[in-house]
């Protein structure tokens, strides 16, 4: 009897599989984002940003008279899902381009799939390996980690700091940051006395910062994108480790400042200028773009804008501009992105080239600090 039930079920599945698909006269843009799961603080604002932008473009009549059809897939930061979705989007939906994934691990898994499938991939993940070696169809919008590291070390040099402690979270972001921090330190005459990895879900790091204190470090660099960033700050103050705390650009989310409360005061970190859009001088070319995105996002979603959503903003707007310039031919759009110069985005001013699929330079970062619970430019 069981056999018949299995057959019945299979027939149902078959019927379901062959149901007709709807074809539309739209530009399909796929997005693979970690909307839920451990990297949701990246994927969630990215997805919201894309939805907002797609509606905006469509309300204006689309591009070349065609509406954008956004297909967002939630990978939950699982590489195997990202792989499945990438194949689905490329072969089945035949998307024009894919935005995402949110994490470096996922991006590296689908880099080759996009390359073989000749589909533009605009990654929102930070790792440098995504664009080095350069793959023809793969681009990324977040700034390079090494620029952030150099910015921090420059600042340390100015402050006369030579002996530091490094703590990073065990995420792809933390791993990449640690590598760069250790590699570049000698160039600036900085010595890393202690370098530690903590769990991304850590909820109390008193013991860790106590270890730092015992080493008499002159400054601490914390490199992570997880809530533990606020915990490091708090625990340092609580045990009386009163040295400057530098954070990575992963600190670019006002939620973390709120979580750290009074302990966040004085934290120094490099970030795109989105967070300090209000206080930028009017002469800054990015100011207009930044303010518009910030106001649109915050009025629509009632939550503070973060630089992560900005990465998706840049990816989407770069694509839109390239389609506007080059029309609806995938290859031409790819060329247009590769040769795009002077695109003003939230992460900086992008100048792509055949050897640089990131397009940002060191100036895309500004050094920020926290004052009275708000982000502000670090006074030089």
């Amino acid at each position: 009897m069981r056999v018949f039930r299995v057959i019945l079920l299979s027939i149902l599945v078959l019927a379901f599989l062959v149901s007709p698909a709807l074809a539309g006269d739209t530009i399909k843009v796929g997005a693979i984002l970690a909307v839920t799961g451990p990297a949701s603080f990246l994927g969630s604002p990215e997805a919201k940003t894309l939805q907002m932008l797609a509606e905006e473009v469509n309300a204006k009549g689309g591009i070349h008279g065609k509406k954008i059809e956004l297909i967002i897939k939630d990978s939950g930061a699982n590489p195997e899902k990202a792989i499945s979705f990438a194949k689905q989007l490329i072969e089945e939906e035949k998307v024009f381009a894919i935005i995402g994934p949110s994490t470096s691990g996922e991006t590296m898994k689908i880099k080759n799939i996009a390359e073989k499938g000749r589909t533009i991939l605009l990654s929102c993940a930070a790792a440098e390996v995504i664009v080095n070696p350069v793959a023809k169809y793969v681009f990324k919008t977040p700034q390079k980690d090494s620029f952030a590291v150099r910015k921090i070390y420059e600042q340390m040099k100015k402050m006369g700091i030579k002996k530091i402690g490094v703590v990073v979270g065990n995420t792809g972001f933390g791993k990449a940051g640690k590598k760069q921090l250790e590699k570049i330190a000698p160039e600036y005459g900085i010595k890393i006395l202690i370098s530690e990895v903590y769990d991304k879900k850590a909820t109390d790091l008193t013991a860790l910062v106590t270890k730092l204190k015992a080493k008499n470090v002159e400054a601490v660099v914390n490199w992570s994108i997880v809530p533990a960033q606020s915990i490091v700050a708090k625990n340092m103050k609580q045990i009386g480790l009163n040295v400057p705390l530098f954070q990575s650009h992963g600190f670019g989310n006002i939620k973390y400042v709120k979580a750290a409360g009074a302990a966040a005061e004085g934290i120094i970190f490099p970030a795109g200028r989105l967070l300090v859009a209000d206080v930028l001088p009017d002469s800054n070319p990015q100011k207009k773009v930044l303010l518009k995105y910030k106001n649109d996002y915050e009025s629509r979603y009632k939550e503070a804008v973060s630089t992560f959503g900005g990465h998706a903003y840049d990816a989407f707007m770069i694509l839109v501009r390239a389609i506007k310039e080059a029309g609806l031919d995938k290859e031409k759009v790819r060329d247009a992105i590769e040769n795009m110069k002077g695109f003003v985005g939230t992460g900086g001013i992008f100048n792509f080239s055949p050897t640089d699929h990131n397009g940002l330079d060191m100036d895309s970062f500004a050094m920020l600090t926290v004052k009275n619970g708000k982000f502000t430019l670090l006074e030089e």
Partner: protein
Amino acid sequence: MRRNVAGYLPVGLLAILVFILQVVLKTSGKEYFLTQITMSVYYSILIVGLCILMGYAGQISLGHAGFFAMGGYITAVLTTFNLLPYADLPVMKIMDMLGMFSRWQDLYGTDIMSVRPIYAGIFAVLFTIVAAYLIGIPVLKLKGHYLAMATLGFGIIIYRVVLGTPLFGEADGISDVPPFGIIGPLRVSGDMSERVMNYYIAWGLLLIGVLFLINLVNSRVGRALRAIHGAEDAANAMGVDTSGYKLRTFILSAVYAAVAGVFLTHYNGGIGPSEASVMKSVRYVAIVAIGGMANIWGALVMGLGLNFLSLRGYFGSYDDAVFGGILIVIMLFAPEGPLRREFFSRIMGLVRGEKEARG
């Protein structure tokens, strides 16, 4: 003998269905479904293996994603680690002459010499056997909650290891894993042009696995396992080597997991730490439970269906919630699995307002 023939009948039917499915998808121009079906088939190999352990031997394992990851990660490391700088070592030369290495170029033109996938895969499975043996001896002495927690602990350790070891790519996992050439033109790869072939390779592997298990269940071993499940002490008293049977089943199910891990990693061209996570292990247990515990076919159907839907992204942001929900409903109302008539009558009973007896 007659019963055995009847036992194999569904396997034959399934093979025909597999073929029909492919033809239907091809004629309707939806061949792209094969990608997710193939992935689900590989997960189902692990699931039928776990089904034997849980349903027949009655031993829970909340660490099977660990064995899957063990297989996947070992083969991924061996086949991507570039051995060219060491090619001049005498040992390497001997191994090279034995044909253990393959030379290839990645998409960006880097020359790579790595272990031939077939050897890497075999090594991964052998390693898993040894690991399962060493873990199984102390773990299987435990029962109930203790067994659940000990296997969970094992799973977490594997997760920690892959997340904390630079060799395993830490949080990023391993990418660019080359295709796995089995024999002649047969090879496991995620390439679009080889999709149909890979569909049949995956099903072939699963069907062989299922056939073996059906054979096992209907043999002396199967009867011993059921005796252990029913009353371990009694089985022991009757002279059944309970700890031996439990250990061998545990190793067998670990091998199924590792084989699935090896093949899927080559098919996907990479593996990440999420494959070793606790949530994955819980999902596998959930699917076996939903399928009806001691029901290979139930586990198979549920494994295929749920994984397929999940990999297609139909559950959206509710992926885990759907699994949790189905799990509870099935465990409350149909601990024997939903693919039985009693389940439907019970649900109908509830609908009609008959009250469930209280205990």
